[in-house]
């Protein structure tokens, strides 16, 4: 869906922001670009909708070389969400959400329907919020409007630059959960820029870890990046608690559970097999008996089993 081939961005002063980057992002996937500041993650994202032009290499979206397309047409087909939403302060919420539809020349009834649908999608009641101005919204609400605006013209691709970075941690968690639920419904190909490895692990189907100078260090599933970092840089960046983080993104390996089963008795906490190893570990630690019961199979799991299960849950 999105393909970067040998892409380099060098500024006239000689600074290399992105170094010979090759990346393939499949349709419907959330790809998190993560790394410390100055690693070129934002530059990489901005080259996809040509807010920055690459020095060399090719970028394709849906098979089309982006430099061959009219730049404004291209951008109208790519949703764009930025940190502080970047809403137009002189436009109402409705008018903000309608921006790209208007640029595309949709007729007014179609725009009105679409705007209401989008506000519903991000959980903002159109009657309550539609006629408000951005300054009358909370940070989280502004960000939702930003997402609704980016999705309004139904673009196949969504670019998000630190979309949840400016809201408080509690609101951020909620927005992240809502975004994942939303993505289940709309299935866009998403490129998400973040400096926060936890956010990358939580939201990303794939994670691209980048290092200063625009080098791609590792591009893999979250569990693989956490479990098997390919370099000291990645190991260091994902943090010393990467094993714990990895539990969150590791499914319970049903076939690797022991043969021992246990009845659902008080003192034993039940965990559905669809949960993560993190939930299972939490249950074994919390249960008085030190035993958790995986449903529906009824298999018993103890704290000491978690290490073995994590090995079995290799991505």
């Amino acid at each position, binding site marked *: 869906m999105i393909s970067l081939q040998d892409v380099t961005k060098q500024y006239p002063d000689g600074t290399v922001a992105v170094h010979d980057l090759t990346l393939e992002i499949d349709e419907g996937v959330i790809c998190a670009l993560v790394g410390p500041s100055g690693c070129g993650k934002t530059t990489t994202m901005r080259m996809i*909708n040509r*807010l920055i032009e690459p020095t060399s290499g090719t970028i394709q979206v849906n098979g089309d070389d982006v430099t061959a397309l009219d*730049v*404004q*047409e*291209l*951008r*109208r087909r790519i949703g*764009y969400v*930025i*940190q*502080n*939403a*970047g*809403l*137009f*302060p*002189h*436009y*109402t919420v409705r008018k903000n959400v309608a*921006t*790209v539809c208007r*640029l595309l020349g949709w007729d007014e009834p179609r725009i009105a329907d679409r705007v209401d649908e989008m506000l519903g999608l991000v959980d903002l009641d159109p009657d309550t919020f539609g006629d408000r*101005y*951005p*300054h*009358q919204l909370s940070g989280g609400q502004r960000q939702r409007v*930003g997402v609704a*605006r*980016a999705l309004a013209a139904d673009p196949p691709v969504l*670019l998000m630059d630190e979309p949840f970075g400016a809201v408080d941690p509690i609101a951020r968690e909620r927005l992240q959960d809502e975004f994942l639920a939303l993505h289940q419904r709309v299935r866009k190909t998403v490129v998400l820029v973040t400096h926060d490895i936890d956010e990358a692990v939580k939201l990303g189907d794939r994670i691209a870890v980048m290092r200063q100078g625009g080098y791609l260090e590792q591009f893999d599933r979250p569990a693989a990046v956490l479990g098997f970092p390919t370099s000291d840089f990645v190991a260091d960046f994902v943090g010393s608690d990467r094993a714990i983080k990895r539990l969150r993104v590791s499914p319970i390996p049903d076939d690797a559970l022991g043969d021992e089963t246990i009845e659902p008795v008080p003192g034993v906490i039940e965990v559905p097999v669809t949960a993560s190893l993190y939930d299972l570990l939490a249950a074994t630690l919390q249960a008085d008996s030190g035993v958790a019961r995986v449903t529906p199979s009824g298999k018993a799991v103890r704290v000491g089993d978690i290490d073995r299960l994590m090995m079995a849950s290799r991505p």
Partner: protein
Amino acid sequence: MGVIEWFTDPANWTGENGIPVRTWQQIEISLAAMALALIVALPVALTLGHLRKGVFLATNIGNVGRAVPTLGVLTILASIPEIGIGNLAAILALALFAIPPVLTNTYTGLAGVDDEVRDAARGMGMSGMGILARVEVPLAVPLIAAGIRTATVQVVATASLAALVGSGGLGRYVVDGFALQDNTLIIAGAILTAALAVVAELVLAGVQRWVTPRGLREQSRAQIEVQEIPAATH
């Protein structure tokens, strides 16, 4: 004759030298000067502000403008044979006087538009002209309007100087008053000039409010409220 008698004398309200005709001449000269100033200043300021280039030029023109003596410019212009005495010299001098506040304010207004808002507009596929017309200018309107308002009030008040180079307007009374050593005429001319400047100020304040987008009007009110809250908790 006292000033009040002068104003209540019906003879001063009619004819070639009457208050309505002189006031209208003052307005004509001011409008012509403002039109000329806007035609010159707005395109330059909008272009520089949109491109965010020429900060030095845009801000320093304001300072230079303040330093230039209008009366001197007026005299020099009137002494150029091609321009000569009369309205043209006055209009040119006043336009030069009005350009700096319009240019500086318009530039500052555009340059002050939030980078993220501009970035979002560009990233959504707006053209450069689209961003200027639909995002930058509406957001800069309070400052642009304030610049035009300041310039207009200055021009209306200063347009009385035009009489010195032989044109009409309210300055006629002042200049004629000096010539005839008639203090009443001088004071009447001064009062009329000041009154017209105040009216211009009030009208343009209304226009400024009217052209400011609703979201911005409420926002500035909200910001004032927000600023007051910490003060109350101290």
